[in-house]
């Protein structure tokens, strides 16, 4: 295929054309921004209104008498299914599930990246290829096999409980979700760290070997401290994905006390006793979204920087 030389377009109108272009571009950008921010705006204002105002007023208007009650109700009193104790329990469920899942999958990804780039073994490329492949496996196709595996793990837990006295968490829905997310996340975290460590100077590892550092000492003292950008990228990526996951959560922890935030939120909205409390629903949705927002705000700077660094270094 031959590459065609792009025709050089003469700027005939000069300054005027430039200004028009600018206006069009910024106008469009503003429009898109508005389009994206509108739902958030509506959610936010609605969550501070009373039911009265919602039923009689305009959706877009600011609350006349802002009230924090819907937030308090969503946190502590609203009904999730049949229990009416708010969403706070489920919020902590999510935290208890997300934090270990993110940390474990990130550390495993870092370790994999380290081995795949600095301790190359026979077939390392193949292993990496298979791990990459894991990134493309659709959620849906994992659902049933994973349910079977979790079922057997659960039974193992029960028999351990009976014989040894502890199930080691096997069969616990939160542990199950951590397990699922770690397994599913390893492909991505390995990809991130492998690409980062590929560009990481191998001579540093060699120098540390001459200095007498062991496999794990090199990992802990040399690799990890120099992996801040990719570490942040991976944590943000994993945190957002796992926190927002609904499919695995509803499949493996869809009922009972250990359901995560996303499932609980769905149940709040679907609980239809009497009037729909839009303000409480919106507040609950905001609470559910806060942690990911927070992570972005705190670490977003590194996110962009990390992605850039990876892009430049290859």
């Amino acid at each position, binding site marked *: 295929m031959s590459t065609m030389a792009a025709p050089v377009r003469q700027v005939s109108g000069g300054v005027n054309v430039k200004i028009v272009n600018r206006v069009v571009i910024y106008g469009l950008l503003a429009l898109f921004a508005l389009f994206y921010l509108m739902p958030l705006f509506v959610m936010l204002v609605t969550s501070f209104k009373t039911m009265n105002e919602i039923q009689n007023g305009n959706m877009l208007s600011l609350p006349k008498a802002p009230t924090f009650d819907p937030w308090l109700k969503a946190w502590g009193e609203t009904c999730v299914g049949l229990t009416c104790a708010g969403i706070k329990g489920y919020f902590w469920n999510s935290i208890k599930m997300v934090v270990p899942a993110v940390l474990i999958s990130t550390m495993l990804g870092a370790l994999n990246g380290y081995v795949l780039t600095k301790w190359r073994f026979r077939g390392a490329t193949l292993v990496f290829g298979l791990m990459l492949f894991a990134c493309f496996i659709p959620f849906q196709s994992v659902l049933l096999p994973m349910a079977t595996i979790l079922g057997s793990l659960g039974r193992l837990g029960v028999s351990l409980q009976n014989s040894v006295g502890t199930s080691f968490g096997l069969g616990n829905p939160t542990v199950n979700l951590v397990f699922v997310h770690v397994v599913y996340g390893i492909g991505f975290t390995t990809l991130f760290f492998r690409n980062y460590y590929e560009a990481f100077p191998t001579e540093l590892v060699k120098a540390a070997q*001459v200095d007498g550092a062991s496999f794990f000492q090199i990992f802990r003292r040399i690799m990890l401290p120099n992996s801040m950008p990719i570490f942040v990228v991976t944590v943000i990526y994993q945190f957002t994905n796992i926190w927002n996951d609904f499919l695995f959560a509803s499949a493996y922890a869809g009922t009972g006390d250990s359901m995560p935030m996303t499932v609980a939120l769905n149940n709040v909205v679907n609980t239809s006793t009497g009037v729909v409390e839009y303000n409480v629903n919106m507040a609950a949705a905001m609470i559910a979204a806060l942690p990911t927002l927070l992570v972005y705000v705190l670490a977003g700077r590194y996110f962009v920087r990390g992605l850039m660094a990876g892009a430049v270094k290859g």
Partner: protein
Amino acid sequence: MAFLEINGLRKRFGQVEILKGIDLELEKGGFLVLVGPSGCGKSTLLNTIAGLETITSGEIRIDDRAVNDLHPSKRDIAMVFQSYALYPNMTVAGNISFGMEMRGVPADERQKAIDKVAKVLQIGHLLQRKPSQLSGGQRQRVAMGRALVRDPKLFLFDEPLSNLDAKLRVDMRIEIKRLHATTGTTIVYVTHDQIEAMTLATKIAVMRDGEVQQFGTPAEIYNNPANVFVADFMGSPAMNLIPATIGGDGSGMAVVLDREARQPITLPMTNAPAGLSAFKGKPVIFGVRPEALTDPEGAERNASHIATADCHIEVVEPAGSDTFAVTNLGGKGVVARLRADANIQPGTSTPLAFNLTKAVFFDPATENRIR
């Protein structure tokens, strides 16, 4: 018994053989310099000595002990990498003491060792900085410090000065020479730099394509090159390698150098090497270094065997301390080194003195030295 011995060392990466049977030995306190064109396997050889690369066959002995299967940390070596390889997350002090820390040296002893090395290398004021806050020369010294603090059996240096500017390079070269002289350590050193090789080495190994072409003292390598490659590689400006024929009658022999559109030059030989008689009437490569091709007044006084011939000068390059003149012999530009005040003009003919005591001959077919 040599301190470092390498016997029949071979290394292959996949199907490609990178080191094709290396034999070297170095006495205790020796300074071995590895030179050779890029990609000839110098770094690979150094890495195998360090144990950072496995070897395919052969043997490496350090201090009379085979180290083939020993982990790098157990070989009692210290290495300075081409890129310095300083740990970016640690301070200078942390970098220098990391090896001791890994070996479980107590903190107060580490501190003493750091202070001592920092004083030698004059980096005391930099100890709390990170490598990214240092200049190239300072990083270089820290990298040296990391090796020096260990007092190992063997130092390995991989082109440690290649990233420095000319001035700093000279300073560091002298520093390394002083270090070697005062501490008497054994060093293996890779470089591209002729002058570094000649000034630092007690032994030089010239490598090409994974083979050692010649192994000897700097003087041997310089004055008695084993083949055309070594003659051409060592020395700057390079040795003149002139296509010539061996002429002469009866027992006397002469070197005949063709010239374009002029009478050939005939240089009578009285001290020809024994092997040269087999080449009578045949082509050879005549090697003469620029400093052995001078104006008659500047010729070495005690050289026993000097032949003078008129040469047509094409280019004159005054270079401060010397003047280089280019003439054409055997179809090639030939560089002569004259006194700085030699009065010559391009386009004229002037007599040049060939110091035939220093001349060498090579077989054009095998490129090996005729002895």
